């Protein structure tokens, strides 16, 4: 099901449209939470108003609880969700600069825009400062590029570092959040010296907090994760498909498409990268079995315009890749019949090419096979960049270097 864009449910070109809708919603919520007031925002540092902490903690915990449940029920594939990679030192320095600016100016980037749109003069000045900062950063980018992109740590997760399951971490964080809400409320009341009558008139949040903790607690004792996703093909259907032979592409069709350099016919080499680098069929791309389900190729596989044909030396590795891909719900996937062995056997040992063809079909088949033989022998079929993995042309690389802005 989700994520929508890598799965091809939402067209990537509609990205900006959804970004606009989400942006309007985000701005509205920020303004409603009172985030256009710099006094309110800075309150968290002086202890008289913790609304910033509560809003962002609520947002984080809500998203986390939702994702944990959706992933538990097999409705979302967490491995496909984009996680901002960690550049340690630039994150620390950037965080320090942002914190300093937050205390001094009373805004963080997102809220300054909200405040500027409701007409706050200081926020507009803040924005001018932000733009100046961006300009300076861009102008001297070459000087600190190595620092900016240095100490790259990939995507470490706290729960993985501690070696505990995600659900335990989520449970711990929910407890921390609930405690933080209670404690910050206390601090706030003490600092503001709120009268007792007002405190007693507030609704009690004991029940919702307890239910939240209880639901996360229950998740700890349910089985780790659903084994099948909602969009997967059930095993019996998969078995039935495996008994039919319509997933096979025969040698003639494959050689014809290779000779024609058909763009809608993509060969996928499932052998190891070293073998792929040694040689591969012209135009083939290399996707090994363990990369098959990754985020990187999800968009490629959800694009059903091209015919994607798995091949290996024989048939079985390619066929297993097909089965895994089919279970994941990929369409327009095929297997090269007989694999490389079968293909070259037909082409070079060519016992099944008749000497004088009797009809059109046979004549065509003879022509293709002779042409293919020539092509392979003369090295015409050799892809120009045979020593390097051929870049995948349909993938939009999602990883962006460097950090993205927070709120």
């Amino acid at each position, binding site marked *: 099901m989700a994520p929508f864009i890598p799965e091809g449910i939402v067209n990537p070109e509609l990205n900006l449209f959804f970004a606009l809708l989400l942006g309007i919603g985000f701005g509205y919520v920020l303004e409603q939470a009172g985030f256009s007031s710099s006094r309110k925002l800075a309150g968290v540092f002086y202890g008289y108003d913790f609304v910033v902490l509560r809003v962002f903690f609520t947002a984080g915990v809500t998203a986390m609880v939702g994702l944990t*449940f959706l992933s*538990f*029920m*097999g409705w979302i594939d967490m491995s496909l969700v984009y996680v901002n990679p960690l550049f340690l030192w630039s994150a620390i320095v950037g965080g320090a600069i942002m914190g300093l600016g937050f205390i001094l100016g009373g805004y963080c980037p997102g809220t300054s825009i909200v405040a500027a749109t409701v007409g706050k003069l200081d926020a507009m000045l803040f924005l001018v400062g932000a733009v100046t900062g961006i300009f300076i950063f861009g102008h001297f980018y070459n000087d600190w590029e190595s620092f900016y992109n240095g100490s790259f740590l990939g995507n470490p997760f706290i729960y993985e570092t501690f070696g505990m399951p995600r659900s335990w971490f989520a449970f711990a964080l929910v407890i921390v959040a609930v405690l933080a809400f209670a404690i910050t409320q206390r601090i706030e009341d003490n600092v503001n010296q709120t009268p007792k009558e007002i405190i007693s008139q*507030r*609704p*009690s*949040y004991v*029940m*919702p907090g307890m*239910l*939240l903790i*209880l*639901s996360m607690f*229950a998740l700890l004792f*349910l089985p780790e*994760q*659903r*084994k*099948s996703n*909602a969009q*997967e093909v*059930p*095993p*019996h259907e*998969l*078995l039935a498909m*495996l*008994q039919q032979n319509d997933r096979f592409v025969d040698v003639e069709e494959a050689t014809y498409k290779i000779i024609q350099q058909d763009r809608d016919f993509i060969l996928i080499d499932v052998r190891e990268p070293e073998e792929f680098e*040694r*040689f591969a069929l012209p135009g083939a791309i290399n996707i090994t*079995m*363990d990369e*098959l*389900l990754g985020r990187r190729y999800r968009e490629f596989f959800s694009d059903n315009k091209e015919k994607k044909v798995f091949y*290996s*030396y*024989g*048939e*079985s*590795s390619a*066929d*297993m890749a097909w*089965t*895994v891909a089919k*279970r*994941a719900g990929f369409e327009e996937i095929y297997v090269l019949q007989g*694999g*490389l*062995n079968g293909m*070259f*056997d037909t082409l*070079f*040992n060519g016992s099944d090419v008749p000497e004088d063809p009797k009809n059109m079909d046979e004549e065509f088949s003879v022509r293709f096979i002779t042409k293919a033989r020539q092509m*392979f*022998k*003369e*090295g015409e*079929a*050799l892809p120009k960049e045979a020593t390097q993995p051929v870049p995948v042309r349909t993938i939009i690389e999602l990883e962006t270097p460097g950090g993205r802005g927070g709120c």
Partner: protein
Amino acid sequence: MNNTSKLNHISLLAFAFVAIVVVVNLFTTNNYGRSNSQVVNAITETNPLMNYHQLRNIADGKTNDFVLVDLRSEEDFLNGHLPSAINIPFASLLEKQSIKTLNRLKDQTPVLYGAKESDAQNARLLLLAKGLDKNIMVLGGNYESALRYAVKDFQPAFSSFSEEKARFDYPRLMGVPQAGPKEDNQPAGIIPAVKTETLSAQGGC
């Protein structure tokens, strides 16, 4: 106080809704015993191929640790099969009866083979996906090759036969320039890449 009870009602409703969805989800759509990525890990981690030396040992009755499982149709099975094999047709692989049969083999490892190596490999993949908690092996090659190279007339040169091995010298056929020193004394044209190996402990689990 009115505010509190309203809040409690809303949160209880939300909790009940989530609980119902989770419970309904728990009792539906549970087709597989392993997630797809667990299956990928299981098949890329281990090499399940059994070589023909071991097959020879089974055929000669020297070992009792393996059970050959024939995945071809019942008709083909009756027309001829490897020694001491049992028949589980590929079409009925996931039926309760078949899985029960496989589970009943307590200390013995099932070794799958079929008309094609890919049938056996896919059968193993499906059984793993279904959650069978058992070591499953696959006979290299297919029924025909096993019969020819191991049962009828044992040829050590073909002992680790597999459809998944390169049969030709592809870089040469495709005119790929070879890096490094190249042996010039090799005959031109197609050479079989089946390696002649000495006996070695290989392909175990």
